[in-house]
Structure formats: structure tokens, C-alpha cells
């Protein structure tokens, strides 16, 4: 009698095998990524891609010795349908649109013409090499050479951009590299398909060539139009998702992916489609969706893109060890040589041609950055792998691609930083500059940057203006839910406020010291004796260091938005906006422009046009978010009667702490002089009363209204607008003003 006993404990591996292995691989790659950042020094000198490949090599070695095969991640379908879209979406979504469109011509020029130049140049040179008998590669046809050349021409931005950030490469270069990488993905894929198709043919006729060129345009433009279409549809859909906030991110992703897939269906450029889709929809979507959805979208895109990229580099390492290689010294080394040579030449020539058309021409250092920064990466790799098998020398090509990628990523990736630094040597010795010089110079730089922004952009202005008009009149009405033409700076400020508020809730750590209050400085100054301090040279050096670390960088050197691996960081922006809070706040008040008190500083701007009230522009309901975000309603009655009190005191502007609200009162007429520095608002809703202690009422999330009692308080002394609930209104009002009833 045999019965099958019921096992108490079973192991059913095959059932979960595939998801399990996927999860493990992703986890492994993520550990690698975490591991790198433990030692900060490593990531400074070695780009992440190098590290990932190294780890991949190690793992590949292990697998090889165990005679395991790596998962078939880099097959055509898996790569193009699953791994590539997230990366491209990431690039597209975080592309800074304004500089991008301003440099559009240059970007296209380098991407399209540059890649063509590279491919054709490398292809022909390699073909010439093939003719030399010594290398034994005569069987490679011209078409196959072109194919290979197109594969190794595609540049990859990751390492380059990380390095560019630390060196002061200006925005223009950044955008060109960024855009070039994006577009030349598309171009390469198109060329690849083209040459693939051509390589399969035995005889190439002239007609075919023209057809293919025509096809190139169809593909490119088709992708763009498709993308734009999907972008608009997405924006339109998000207009109606007011009640179902949870699925908003999902909609974005679905539509983007759909754009990609359908473009693949029609064999037009799916990469262009998804990028243009992301670009188009971003603007409208971010106005329609809630704050949380916006954050979610950004985070998820970054996450998936980052994972995808990590995996690809990782597998690059793994597969390098585990595939069958075919090595041919001559061919491969020459391929490498030509790749570098043609890129350098290409950049040189193309820059010469396009420089006259640019407002800010590229100098030699820029060109070097562009040329040397042409690292190859993921796309080349995948394309090599997906070569059809009827190409005789497929293994040779794969090996060649891997060599080029590894060389550029390791050698160029690691050395580009020191080289750029070398070229960037400061002419003047820092320590010979006085503190005076440094400060004034920085002020002037900020001034010039500001005036440049004021002037706007010269050349493409006309089209942009036309588009903006069209946008405002037609598109916004259709695609955006509540369409209020409010000042963009106020909108931005509100958005930052909300984000800020949420962050405050997240990090309640107390390590942010009380804001250096200038009031306290002022008072201490009055009390302190006015002896001249002696400064040691070490003091001065310290000051120099302090300045260099802490002075805000000029706008066009702050390239945080283009860091591929992190989210856009607007800490600086936040700090600056917080400080200018009062002046911004006044923009929402019907206040007067110039204070009559001559001692008032910088308090003069952004008043509404006379006679208009706030309600006409910002109806309160706009700010209520249904998903339980911070609900705040502006109570406009309080704003319309801003109570201000005059004071003879000359109070300097007190800067506002970004995350903690420091309450303080100012010198009042009756000499009451309370210093409330150090009182902290621990969350959004706290409140400062006039007698100098924190009353922390107003639980977060409830809607609050201004009580009349505090109105009176304002009349007597200049006071913090304690009870105005809207974040914009709630800052202490430290500057005494003339009583002003409107």
C-alpha cells in the first residue's frame, strides 16, 4: 500500500521562478547602487556606470564559473519594450523645456547631422580597413560596416552629465548634450533599422537609398506628431481626474507607454514619440494634477528609469564575461580609434558651422567637453545584441561594441573630470582677491544674470511668443481644469509652499538653527561697542571659504534640474523665495508700491494694479485640494485690510528661515522690543501672538479663518500676520508700514 503522503513543507520553485529571478536581479543591482554611495569619494571620481559595469563583470565572472547563463534580458523584445521606455521617459520628462527649445536648432543639428556624420565616417573608414588583407575581415560588406558604425555612434549622457555638474559647464552645453543624447537615440535606432534593412538586400539601388532617406523623415516627424498627439490627449484626460486623484500617475504612465507601443506598431520612432509626449504633457499635467500626484509621477519615473539604467549597465558587465567573443585586433582597435576620431572631428566641424547662428557660441573648451564627453552606453549595447543572426560577423560586432563602450565609459568617464578641471583653471589666485571683491563680483554676476532674464531670449523669441499666445488662448482652455491666468511666480510660489509645508511635516528634525535675525544683529550692534575688529589672515581665509561654499550660484550654473539620477532640487529656489516672501506677499495685496518711509528696503514691488482686489484673480476655492492635502482657504477679507503701523524704527529686512518660522517682532513705536528669535514653528499651523510666545493652534488641515481679535492687534503694533491661514500670508510681518486701508 503506497500512498502519496501529503508533504508538510513543499518547495515549488518553477512556479515563481521568473518573477523571483527578476526581483533578485533588480535587488542585486540596487544593492550595488546603494553600496556606491556609502563611500562618497568613489562616486566623485568614478561615474556610476563604471561601477555598475564592474560589479556586473564580477557577477558575470561568478556566473561563468558556475556555467550559468544570464537571463535573456537583452533580447530584442525585452530591451526595446521594457527596458528602454523608462529611460527615455525619464529623459523626456525631466528635460528643461525652455532652454531646450531655445537651443532646439543646435540640438537637432548635433543629434541628427552629427550622428549621420559619425556613422558614415566610421562606416567608410572601417570598410577601408576591411579591404586590407592583413586583418582578415574582408567579408564584411559596406552595409554591415555602416550598421556597426551606426551602433557605436550613439552617445549616452549619464556619466557625462554627472561630471558636467561639478564643473562649471554652462547651461548651453548641458542642454546640447542632453538633447543630443536624447535625439541621437532616436536617430541611431532609425539608422540602425535603415542599415539593417539595407544590409539584408543584396543589391542597393539609388532609389532605395532615397526611399530610405524619405523614410527617415517619416519616422522622425511621425514620431514627433504622434507624441504630441498623445501628450495632448493625456493632458485632456487629466482635466477630468479631479475626483480620482489616485489614478492620475497611472494615466500618465499608461499614455506614455501607449504612445511608445503604438509608435512601435507603426514602425515610426517610438523614442521620439515618448519623449515628445512627455514634453508636451508635462506642462499641462502639472497644472491639473494634485501636488501629491505630481510628486508621485516624478518619483516613479525617476525610480523606474534609474532601475532600468542600472540593470542595463549591470548586464553589460555580466554579459561581457558570459558571451562568446570573437576578437580581431585590427578591426576592433580601429573601430575604437575611428569612433573617437570621427566624433572629435564631427564636433569641431559642426560647431564651426553652427556657431555663427548661435547667440552664445561654443568656445574650445565647450567643444572639448562635447567631443570627449561622447560616451557610449546602453543603447549601443542593446542594438548590438539585437543584430539579426544573418550577419556573419555578429559576434565580432558585439565584441567591438562592448570594447568601445567599456573604453569610453571607463577611460573617458574617469578622466573627463580632471581634464575639464584642468582646462578650467582660474586665472586669478583666489586668495589675492579681497572679500570685498568676491562679494561685489558675485553681486554683479547676479545682476547680469537677472538682467539677461529680463531681456529674455533674443532670437527665437518670435515663435515662442506666438506659441504662447496660442497656448494661452486655446490650449489652456481646453486642457487645463481651472484655467486662471495667474502670475506664474505666484503659482510657483504656492507650489513651493505646499511642497515645503509637506517637507516640514516630514522632517521635524531640529537641526536647523534659528534664522539669523538681522533684528538681533541690529540690536547687538547698537549695544556693542564700535571698536574695529582685527582680522587675522586665517579669519580672512575662512571667510573666503565660507563665501565660496555658501554664496548662491548664478542661475546658469545651477544645473540641478539636469542631474539624471536625482530629482530636481529646488532648495536654493525655496530659500530665495522664502526670503522674498514679503515682497511676494505684497503682490497679493492691494497695497501701495512705494513705502513713504525712506528706510524701507526692497519692499516695494509686486502690487496689484490699483483698484483691483484679489478676489477677482484668486477665488478661494482654487486652493482646496480634494485629496486631503493641506487645505487652505485664503481669507481675503483680511488681506484687503492690511493693517500696518508706522514706526520710526529703521528695521532691516529680516530673512525668513526656510523651514522654521522664526517669530519676532520689530521695534515698535512705544519701544517695545521683543526678541523672539528662536521660537519655532514646528508645523504649518502654528501661530505667533503678539505677546511673544508661540501659540500653536490651528491643527494642520483644517480651514481657518481670521478672527477679528487679531485685527485689532495689528493696529497697535506691527505684527505677524498670525492668522492669515494661507501659507503665503502667514509669515511674520516685520516691516512696519504706514497704516493703509484699502
Amino acid at each position, binding site marked *: 500500500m503506497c500512498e502519496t503522503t501529503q508533504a508538510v513543507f513543499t518547495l515549488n520553485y518553477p512556479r515563481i521562478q521568473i518573477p523571483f529571478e527578476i526581483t533578485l536581479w533588480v535587488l542585486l543591482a540596487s544593492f550595488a547602487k546603494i553600496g556606491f554611495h556609502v563611500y562618497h569619494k568613489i562616486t566623485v571620481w568614478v561615474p556610476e556606470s563604471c561601477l555598475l559595469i564592474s560589479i556586473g563583470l564580477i557577477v558575470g565572472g561568478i556566473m561563468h564559473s558556475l556555467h550559468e547563463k544570464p537571463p535573456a534580458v537583452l533580447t530584442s523584445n525585452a530591451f526595446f519594450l521594457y527596458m528602454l521606455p523608462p529611460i527615455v521617459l525619464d529623459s523626456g520628462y525631466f528635460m528643461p523645456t525652455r532652454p531646450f527649445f531655445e537651443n532646439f536648432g543646435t540640438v537637432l543639428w548635433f543629434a541628427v547631422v552629427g550622428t549621420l556624420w559619425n556613422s558614415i565616417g566610421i562606416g567608410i573608414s572601417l570598410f577601408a580597413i576591411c579591404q586590407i588583407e592583413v586583418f582578415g575581415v574582408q567579408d564584411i560588406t559596406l552595409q554591415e560596416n555602416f550598421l556597426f558604425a551606426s551602433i557605436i555612434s550613439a552617445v549616452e549622457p549619464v556619466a557625462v552629465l554627472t561630471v558636467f555638474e561639478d564643473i562649471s559647464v554652462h547651461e548651453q552645453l548641458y542642454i546640447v548634450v542632453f538633447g543630443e543624447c536624447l535625439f541621437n537615440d532616436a536617430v541611431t535606432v532609425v539608422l540602425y533599422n535603415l542599415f539593417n534593412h539595407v544590409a539584408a538586400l543584396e543589391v542597393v539601388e539609388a532609389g532605395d537609398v532615397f526611399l530610405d532617406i524619405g523614410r527617415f523623415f517619416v519616422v522622425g516627424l511621425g514620431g514627433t506628431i504622434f507624441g504630441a498627439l498623445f501628450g495632448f490627449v493625456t493632458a485632456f484626460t487629466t482635466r477630468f481626474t479631479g475626483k480620482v486623484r489616485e489614478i492620475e500617475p497611472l494615466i500618465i504612465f499608461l499614455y506614455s507607454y501607449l504612445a511608445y507601443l503604438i509608435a512601435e506598431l507603426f514602425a515610426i520612432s517610438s523614442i521620439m514619440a515618448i519623449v515628445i509626449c512627455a514634453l508636451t504633457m508635462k506642462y499641462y499635467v502639472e497644472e491639473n494634477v494634485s501636488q501629491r500626484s505630481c510628486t508621485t509621477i516624478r518619483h516613479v519615473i525617476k525610480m523606474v528609469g534609474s532601475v532600468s539604467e542600472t540593470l542595463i549597465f549591470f548586464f553589460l558587465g555580466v554579459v561581457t564575461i558570459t558571451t562568446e567573443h570573437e576578437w580581431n585586433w585590427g578591426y576592433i582597435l580601429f573601430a575604437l580609434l575611428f569612433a573617437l576620431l570621427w566624433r572629435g572631428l564631427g564636433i569641431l566641424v559642426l560647431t564651426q558651422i553652427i556657431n555663427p547662428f548661435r547667440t552664445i557660441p561654443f568656445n574650445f573648451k565647450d567643444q572639448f567637453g562635447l567631443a570627449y564627453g561622447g560616451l557610449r552606453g546602453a543603447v549601443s549595447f542593446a542594438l548590438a545584441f539585437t543584430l539579426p543572426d544573418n550577419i556573419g560577423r555578429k559576434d565580432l560586432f558585439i565584441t567591438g561594441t562592448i570594447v568601445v563602450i567599456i573604453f569610453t565609459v571607463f577611460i573617458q568617464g574617469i578622466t573627463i573630470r580632471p581634464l575639464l578641471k584642468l582646462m578650467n583653471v582660474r586665472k586669478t589666485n583666489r586668495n589675492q582677491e579681497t572679500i570685498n571683491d568676491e562679494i*561685489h563680483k558675485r*553681486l554683479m554676476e547676479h545682476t547680469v544674470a537677472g538682467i539677461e*532674464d529680463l*531681456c529674455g531670449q533674443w532670437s527665437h523669441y518670435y515663435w515662442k511668443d506666438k506659441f504662447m499666445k496660442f497656448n494661452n488662448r486655446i490650449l489652456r482652455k481646453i486642457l487645463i481644469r481651472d484655467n486662471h491666468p495667474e502670475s506664474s511666480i505666484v503659482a510657483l510660489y504656492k507650489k513651493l509652499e505646499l511642497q515645503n509645508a509637506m517637507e516640514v511635516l516630514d522632517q521635524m528634525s531640529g537641526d536647523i538653527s534659528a534664522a539669523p*535675525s538681522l533684528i538681533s544683529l541690529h540690536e547687538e550692534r547698537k549695544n556693542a561697542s564700535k571698536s574695529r575688529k582685527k582680522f587675522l589672515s586665517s579669519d580672512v581665509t575662512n571667510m573666503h571659504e565660507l563665501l565660496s561654499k555658501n554664496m548662491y550660484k548664478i*542661475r546658469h550654473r545651477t544645473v540641478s534640474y539636469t542631474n539624471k539620477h536625482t530629482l530636481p532640487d529646488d532648495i536654493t529656489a525655496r530659500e*530665495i523665495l522664502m526670503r522674498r516672501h514679503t515682497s511676494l506677499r505684497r503682490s497679493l495685496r492691494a497695497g501701495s508700491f512705494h513705502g513713504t518711509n525712506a528706510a524701507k528696503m526692497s519692499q516695494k514691488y*509686486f502690487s496689484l494694479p490699483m483698484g483691483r482686489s484679489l478676489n477677482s484673480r484668486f477665488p478661494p476655492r482654487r486652493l482646496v485640494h480634494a485629496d486631503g492635502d493641506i487645505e487652505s482657504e485664503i481669507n481675503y477679507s483680511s488681506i484687503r485690510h492690511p493693517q500696518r503701523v508706522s514706526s520710526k524704527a529703521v528695521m532691516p529686512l529680516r530673512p525668513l528661515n526656510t523651514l522654521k518660522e522664526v517669530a519676532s517682532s520689530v521695534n515698535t513705536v512705544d519701544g517695545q522690543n521683543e526678541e523672539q528669535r528662536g521660537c519655532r514653528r514646528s508645523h504649518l499651523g502654528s501661530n505667533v501672538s503678539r505677546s511673544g510666545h508661540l501659540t500653536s493652534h490651528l491643527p494642520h488641515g483644517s480651514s481657518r479663518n481670521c478672527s477679528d481679535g487679531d485685527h485689532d492687534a495689528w493696529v497697535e503694533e506691527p505684527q505677524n500676520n498670525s492668522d492669515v491661514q494661507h501659507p503665503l500670508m502667514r509669515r511674520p510681518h516685520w516691516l512696519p508700514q504706514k497704516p493703509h486701508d484699502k
Partner: protein
Amino acid sequence: MGSTNSTLLKIPNVEVLMQETGFSPAHIIRLHDRFKALDKEGRGHLCPHDFGAIKELAMNPIGDRIIGAFFSPGKETVDFHTFVKILAHFRPVDKDRPKEPNSPEPINSRSNKLKFAFQLYDQDKDGKISRDELLQVLRAMLGMQVTDEQLESIADRTIQEADLDRDDTISFEEFRKSLEKINIDHKMSIRFLR
């Protein structure tokens, strides 16, 4: 963008403007387009609110000071002429302009550029940069991590380096003198305004 002449004609006193500022007609037209674009309501003059709409300017640490420089005390609007004249400060210096003995100093002279920078500090327009004014600017330009004492010592040092008559403020002359080694033309010019 319209034909050159017709647009130029629409601007009153454009000849005088070009003479005073040294801008070419093409630049005047571009500036005029920009002015009109900023002046969203088409009133013919700009108010601070219009400047506020420029996002990047708002992100500038001294953005409000820059905007304030456009509005002379007591005035709340900027017309096109004033707009252009202020922007003329940022033209690169014309090196080969003949020095006529009786003509007034060009707007983009080194001295005038320095005056512009000076007024960004000197908000109360008393002709001197006081310690407080300096502190304010420093506060605006430095990140939040800088403490009071550090700020104060920097301000003290700055004044010490520049202040020659020991009145604890920096007058315009002292300001100018302290910056004599710096190439102001390079620092305070915008290339595309040439």
C-alpha cells in the same frame, strides 16, 4: 516682427533714445518687443507686477533689488524709454567711440555701471552703503547655513577693506576705488546687447 522702419516709427523719440543709449535699431526693436511682451495688459508702461512675472528673475537672490532699480523713487511705472536707458547700462563699452569733449558720459561707461551696482546696495539712496545695507545683501546672497557672527564678520571685513575715511559706511568713491582692479566692463556687460 514687422518691418524695421514701421516699428521704429511707432516708438516716440526713438532717435534720441538711440543716440543716448547707443543701441542699434535692431536692438531697440527687440527691446520694444520684449517690453510689449512683458506689458501684458498693453498699457504702455510696466509696473512691478509685470517684472514679477518673470520666473527666473524671482529666483534671483537680488531679484527684487534689480527690479527696484528700474523704478525711480516715487514712480510706479516704467515707460519704454526708462526701460531702455536702464538696460543700456549693460551694453559692453564701445572701445572705439570718439571722445567728444562736451558730450555727457555714455550710459554704459564704467562709472555708470558702478553707480548701478552701487544703487543695488544703497536702497535708501543716501549715497552710502551702511553696514545694515551690506548685511542685507549678504544675507540675500548667502545660504541659510551662515550664522550671524559669520555674516557680521564678513560685513565688517568688507567695510574695513573699503572704508577709507573710517565712517563705517562705504561711499561711492570708496566703492569705486575698492573695485579698481576688477574689469567692470566684463562683469557688468551682456554680450548680446552690443
